[in-house]
C-alpha cells in the first residue's frame, strides 16, 4: 500500500504534549506495520517541557516552576536532552524507512534529513546550515535542534524551528545551576539561538509558507512528490488512541524517576591569567561521570560557540577521562584564546567536581 515515491504531508495543529507524543508513537508503529505512508508531519505545542526518552523528570526539570506556569511535562520517544516547546516554535518530523533513505547508518540519515531541512529554512530568506551532529544553524546560532527514534526499519526524525522563542523561559524550565540565570548568562544563551522572526523582521512568512518551503525541500532531497492530507487513516487513528491511553499518564512520564539528588550539581570559581571561569557540573555518582558541565565567566575565546561545543563534548565523560577529553577537544577545535589554556578548563572543571566531595 505504501508508495515509495510519495511523501504525505500532515498538519496536526496545536496540541498538548501528550497528544503529540502519542502521535509520534502511533505513526512510527503504523509505519513499521506498513499501515502508514511515508509522512512529513507539522506539529505545534501548547507550553510543554519535553524530556528525552531516557531522562528523569526530577533531574532535568524545575517541576515547581512548570506547575506554577501551567507547563505540561511529558516524555518523548526520541533521545537527547530536555527541551521547552511552545507556540513560538514549529515542529517538523519525518516517518520513513532505511530503504527510502538508502542507508542504515544513523549518522548519515541525520545528515541527509538535516541538510534538506536547512535548505527549506534557507528558502525562507536566511542562510541555514546543518551542523553535525544534530543542529541547524544560522550564522553559528541554533535555529533548529533535531533527534530521532527507530523501530525496526522505520525511523522517525524530528526537529524544531524557532520562530519567536523565549530563551529565558526555557532556562527557567530546565534544572540548571542558578548561575545560568544571571542577566549576563541569559543574554549569552540568547546569543546562541536564532529566531526566524528576528532574522526576517517584517518579512515574516505565514505558518503555511514555512510548511510549504520545508515540504518542497524534503520532496527535492528525496525525489518524491508531495501529497497534502487532511487527516490520518483509520489504522493510524486507532493506534493513536491506544498510544494516548499509555502516554497520557504519570506512569509514562515519570517512569524510572530517580530523586534529583542522584545527580548532584556543584559549582566552583577559578581564576587564572586568562580570566575567571565559573563552572557548574552535574555528576552521576553511580557511573562516576560528568553528566553535564556549564561554563561561564569572564574570559575570551573565539569562536564564541566553542564553550557550548566543549560543554557538549564533555557530556557523559568519565571523571578519569576529563583531562584527556578536554585536550582532545582543543586539538580538534582550533581556538583563539587570550592567556587561557586548555589546562585552565581542566582545573576549573576539576575544582567543581571536587567541590562535591567534601
Amino acid at each position, binding site marked *: 500500500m505504501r508508495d515509495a515515491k510519495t511523501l504525505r504531508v500532515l498538519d496536526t495543529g496545536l496540541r498538548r504534549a501528550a497528544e503529540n507524543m502519542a502521535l509520534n508513537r502511533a505513526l512510527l508503529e503504523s509505519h513499521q506495520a506498513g499501515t502508514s505512508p511515508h509522512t512529513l508531519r507539522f506539529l505545534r505545542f501548547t507550553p510543554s517541557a519535553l524530556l528525552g*526518552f531516557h531522562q528523569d523528570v526530577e533531574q532535568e526539570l524545575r517541576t515547581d516552576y512548570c506547575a506554577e506556569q501551567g507547563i505540561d511535562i511529558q516524555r518523548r520517544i526520541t*533521545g537527547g536532552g530536555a527541551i521547552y516547546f511552545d507556540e513560538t516554535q514549529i515542529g517538523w518530523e519525518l516517518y520513513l524507512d532505511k530503504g527510502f533513505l538508502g542507508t542504515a547508518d*544513523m549518522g548519515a540519515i541525520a545528515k541527509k534529513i538535516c541538510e534538506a531541512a536547512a535548505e527549506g529554512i534557507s528558502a525562507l530568506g536566511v542562510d541555514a546550515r546543518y551542523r553535525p551532529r544534530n543542529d541547524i544553524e544560522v550564522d553559528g546560532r541554533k535555529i533548529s535542534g*533535531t533527534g530521532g527514534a527507530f523501530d525496526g526499519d522505520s525511523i522517525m526524525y524530528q526537529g524544531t524551528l524557532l520562530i519567536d522563542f523565549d530563551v529565558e523561559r526555557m532556562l527557567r524550565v530546565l534544572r540548571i545551576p542558578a548561575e545560568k540565570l544571571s542577566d549576563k548568562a541569559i543574554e549569552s544563551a540568547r546569543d546562541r539561538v536564532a529566531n526566524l522572526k528576528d532574522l526576517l523582521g517584517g518579512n515574516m512568512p505565514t505558518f503555511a509558507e514555512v510548511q510549504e518551503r520545508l515540504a518542497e525541500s524534503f520532496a527535492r532531497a528525496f525525489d518524491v512528490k508531495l501529497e497534502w492530507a487532511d487527516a490520518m487513516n483509520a489504522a493510524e487513528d486507532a493506534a493513536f488512541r491506544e498510544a494516548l491511553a499509555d502516554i497520557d499518564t504519570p506512569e509514562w512520564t515519570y517512569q524510572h524517576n530517580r530523586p534529583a539528588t542522584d545527580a548532584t550539581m556543584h559549582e566552583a570559581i577559578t581564576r587564572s591569567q586568562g580570566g575567571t571561569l565559573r563552572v557548574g557540573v552535574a555528576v552521576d555518582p*553511580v557511573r562516576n561521570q560528568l553528566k553535564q558541565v556549564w561554563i561561564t565567566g569572564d574570559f575570551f575565546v573565539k569562536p564564541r560557540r566553542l564553550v557550548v561545543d566543549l560543554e557538549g563534548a564533555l557530556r557523559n565523560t568519565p571523571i578519569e577521562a576529563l583531562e584527556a577529553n578536554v585536550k582532545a577537544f582543543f586539538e580538534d577545535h582550533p581556538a583563539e584564546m587570550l592567556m587561557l589554556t586548555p589546562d585552565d578548563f581542566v582545573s576549573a572543571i576539576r575544582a567543581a567536581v571536587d567541590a562535591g566531595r567534601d
Partner: protein
Amino acid sequence: MDCNGCEFHPELYYDDEYQIWVRREDDGNLTVGMTDLSQTIAGKILHVRVRRPGTRRPPGKPVATIESGKWAGPIPNFMDCTIIEGNAEVMENPSLLNADPYNAWVARVEPVDGADKALEGFHTGDDARKGYCARVKKDDIHCDKN
C-alpha cells in the same frame, strides 16, 4: 571469512537481520544481546533500559531500549518471553555494549513455549555466518572497535 572486522560467534542464534544474538542456557532460559554489527550501526550507546523482571513480552514488543547520540529505539524482540533480569552492569555502563557486545548481554528471558519453539526461525552456525557477512557487506558496515 572476513566480515569487515565484525565479530561473529557460530554457537549463538541470530534473527534474519542479525540485530540480536541469543544464547541457550542449561536451565532452558535464553540470554539476549546485541551483535557487533548492530552496536556498530548504533554508535556510542548512552542508555539502556530493560523492562521490569516478570514482564511478558510477545514477539514485536521490545525487551529493552537503547539510546545513542540523539537516537532512541528498541532492541528488537522476536520471541514470546518473560523477562528474568536485565544486566545491571550494562545498564550502569552502556558503552560495554560497544566495547564487548558478546559478553555484555542485555537480558535473560524465559521463553513462554520453551527454547526450541522460541528459536524457530533463528539462524545459527555456518548458515548464520554466511548471512551475517552478507548483511555486513550489503550495508557496508565496518566494525572497528578502536
